[in-house]
């Protein structure tokens, strides 16, 4: 014999089951609009009402989907904001880069490369320049053009 189901009995439609205000349901859902005790009292009443329990269950079950929708909408708004902000940032970054480049180009002839510090190898702790390394020097010699043309003269 099939055993009766407590949940099926408990969920049966009741004549005196009236739908609550949306605000009251949302207060139970989000825990706002009253003290914690008040919320728990309403939750206890909701648990006895199949109709309101169903509505709440739908709202709870849709929580992740609502979050996904919200996130999707925010993502669609973000590129618009980025486009508006971009010109100012790009202009600032470009001007800084140009200034840095200009300074480095102007100062390069005056700056003695580390290779020009005639340090005796035995006296220095380290030599971070690779310019004077024999392999680099050899490569430079290899890269030297065999034929050079000058159209200025």
């Amino acid at each position, binding site marked *: 014999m099939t055993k009766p189901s407590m949940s099926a009995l*408990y*969920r049966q439609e009741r004549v005196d089951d009236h*739908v609550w205000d949306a605000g009251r349901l949302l207060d139970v859902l989000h825990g706002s609009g009253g003290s914690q005790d008040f919320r728990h009292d309403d*939750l206890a009443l909701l648990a006895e009402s199949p109709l309101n329990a169903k509505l709440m269950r739908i709202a*709870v*079950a849709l929580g992740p989907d609502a979050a996904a929708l*919200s996130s999707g*909408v925010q993502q669609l708004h973000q590129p618009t904001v980025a486009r508006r902000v971009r010109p100012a940032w790009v202009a600032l970054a470009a001007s800084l880069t140009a200034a840095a480049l200009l300074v480095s180009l102007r100062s390069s002839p005056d700056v003695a490369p580390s290779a020009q510090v005639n340090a005796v190898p035995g006296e220095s702790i380290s030599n971070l320049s690779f310019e004077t390394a024999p392999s680099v020097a050899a490569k430079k010699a290899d890269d030297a053009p065999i034929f050079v043309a000058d159209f200025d003269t």
Partner: protein
Amino acid sequence: MDPATQQRLQALIAQFSRKVRLQIESNRLDQHGIDADDIEQEVRIRLWKTLERDPKAELPASYVQKVVVSTLVDAVRRAQARPVEQLPESDETWTDWQRETRSPDRSAGDAQHLDRIRECLDALPVRRRVPVQLYLQGYALQEIAELSDLTLDAARKLVYRGLEETKQRLRALGLGEFDD
């Protein structure tokens, strides 16, 4: 708002509205005179109107839930205000779920069983009673935990202990065995 963004927003809202429809169907709200198509459309229109009023609106999840709950409450009220129609019985009713109607004897038996179940539930401490009631209303353990500010483990223990105690009381009243 450019047409491409508008189209994507509409697609997102349509996708969400379809989920609303599925929830209405799976929770059998048609028993209360709710038309899932109507709700799907209404939710879509309300959300879209919000974006039309304020194209920068980000639609927080709590706002989206508010729109759904308001739409459902309005629809239930409209249905309750309409002249009473004979609605089909739920297929979740026990033992005679394949039949269209229930005999008066069966209905009286159901009512008596329900009264006894309520008595047994009322005998439980509140902390245990509410999670059991929510479980009987079809809530998942995770949902019970979130609504009751409990950990999942605590919700599970309260529900199972509460159910066992209720079944024991029903047996002691001579009503035999019950399924969850």
